[in-house]
């Protein structure tokens, strides 16, 4: 019941100040707040660890070439939600999905039974909370996705590696130490290396799981700036528990609370005139 109510928060009304009461009457026609075109969307996505339901029928659109931010207090399920996209939960026993995650333009349901998680992961890329470069050289870290895909041609790999490192604003810093261990770089550089690794395979959607939470403010600033440049080429979905960060960099924001989507909307609108009391309480710092 609550799911229906909060779904209406983004589907429902042009007047965001009024609390939505009736969602049935204004569905597709009323999606005036939905972005277009979509790169992906979730349909009533639920997720279970064993018998514990962590996500409750979450429906969120992901706008192409935009940054969509997921915010919410710790434990609200935003990371769990993100990790559904590349079926990371498949690595652990006792997990179960319900609902759908649709990737456009081919409208492929990522969670479909016939879909191989590896096929999905080939199309998406992920950057984690803590930088996790492999114990390999800078070059091999970035080349990893290509090698996994069976690319052998040295020239192709060289070119992609340089391109990805440039896109991640790391090339100038590491071009003379491509054979140094990725783990020997500074924290901020390591995270940009992980972004380069993710970009090298030209993903359709870049998933970022609190990518700056382990970094200092300067490194954080670098990465935020980088994401602004990147969004022209790749759709970005970012989880952050830093509201200011979401407000600074994202075009769309989804606010989640205890496994449910409370509100979705354009970032500017959501942060200035939230439609939901809970959203307002959260962004004004009353809880969370």
């Amino acid at each position: 019941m609550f799911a229906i109510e909060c779904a209406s928060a983004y589907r429902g009304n042009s007047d965001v100040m009024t609390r939505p009461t009736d969602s049935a009457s204004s569905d597709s026609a009323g999606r005036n707040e939905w972005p277009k075109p979509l790169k992906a969307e979730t349909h009533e996505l639920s997720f279970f660890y064993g018998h514990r339901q962590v996500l409750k029928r979450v429906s969120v659109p992901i706008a192409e070439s935009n940054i969509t931010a997921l915010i919410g207090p710790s434990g609200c399920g935003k990371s769990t939600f993100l990790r559904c996209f590349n079926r990371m939960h498949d690595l652990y026993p006792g997990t179960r999905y319900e609902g759908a995650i649709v990737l456009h333009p081919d409208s492929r349901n990522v969670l479909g039974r016939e879909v191989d998680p590896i096929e999905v992961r080939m199309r998406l890329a992920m950057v984690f909370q803590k930088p996790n470069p492999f114990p390999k050289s800078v070059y091999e870290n970035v080349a990893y996705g290509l090698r996994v895909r069976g690319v052998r041609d040295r020239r192709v790999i060289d070119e992609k590696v340089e391109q990805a490192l440039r896109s991640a604003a790391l090339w100038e810093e590491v071009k003379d130490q491509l054979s140094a261990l990725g783990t020997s770089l500074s924290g901020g550089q390591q995270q940009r290396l992980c972004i380069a690794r993710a970009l090298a395979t030209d993903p359709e959607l870049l998933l970022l799981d609190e990518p700056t939470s382990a970094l200092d403010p300067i490194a954080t600033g670098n990465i935020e700036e980088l994401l602004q440049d990147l969004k022209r080429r790749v759709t970005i979905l970012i989880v952050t528990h830093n509201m200011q960060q979401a407000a600074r960099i994202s075009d769309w924001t989804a606010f989640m609370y205890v496994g449910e989507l409370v509100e979705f909307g354009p970032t500017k609108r959501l942060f200035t005139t939230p439609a939901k009391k809970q959203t307002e309480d959260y962004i004004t710092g009353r809880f969370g």
Partner: protein
Amino acid sequence: MEIRETVSISHSSVMESASHRRARRRREFLIEGALLLAALVSVAATITILFVLVFESVGFFETVPLLDFLTDTLWTPLFDDPHYGILPLLAGTIVTSVVGLVVAIPVGTVSAVYLSEFASARLREIIKPVLEMLGAVPTVVYGYFALLVVTPALQWIWPELPGFNMLGPGVVIGIMILPLVISLSEDAMRAVPMMLREGSYAMGATRLQTAWRVVVPAATSGIVAAYVLGISRAVGETMVVAIAAGQNPNLTWNPMEPAATITAYIVQVALGDLPHGSIGYQSIFAAGLVLAVMTFAFNIVGHLMRKRFREVY
């Protein structure tokens, strides 16, 4: 009234604990001393052994020049025309150990990868105790296993293989050190943070790609440490080679031939009655010293590697 009562209670309890404290300190001092003593036993044993080895070897090297010891190709300390070249024994030790490693390293590494990255928790719980049982079999049993099972099996493939040879015992040494190699390398692989595996899977890698390209390289130093400790076990192994490799010092690098290792020589000579202080008696210690230096060096390398792999992440 109430306040005064509280104060007096707490006061008396402080007094009590003061006398208690002294007793407790004495007790703790005694316990600490006992623990220290227990820890010192192994240190003292190591030092004593090294001291005895060096002390008795000094007498040996007064008779036999070090150069002869290291370069002579014959080891016949009990013959009328004695030669004291350690090379034949060293070669026997190296050949049996290398054969053992050729078995243990590939099989051990692959098993460890399987156990750590592929096996279900249930299967792992069955396999690991069985492996540990393999480590608990007495080495003399392994010796006869080499002599009576493995060598005949190998003779079935190579009929010209002599009854005593280094190949059979080498293979058995490999089987013997498998549990050590597997369990240490598996520990190293399991210590690789899940974060790295997730990074690899997120790039679209398969389980096999993740295991070989990320987990094994990340655990390299731990795996190498497992190999090194395996080597030092193989070098020091005694019963298997004494029983199944033949006991003639024989300078050869061919595992199909019989030969004696350093350990086999020590057992063989120690079983006879050598007069105390004779050159034959002293030769045991010289050979033992060589062995101790070898295993000691391998152990140090192994422990350094283990330390390093702990510090990687």
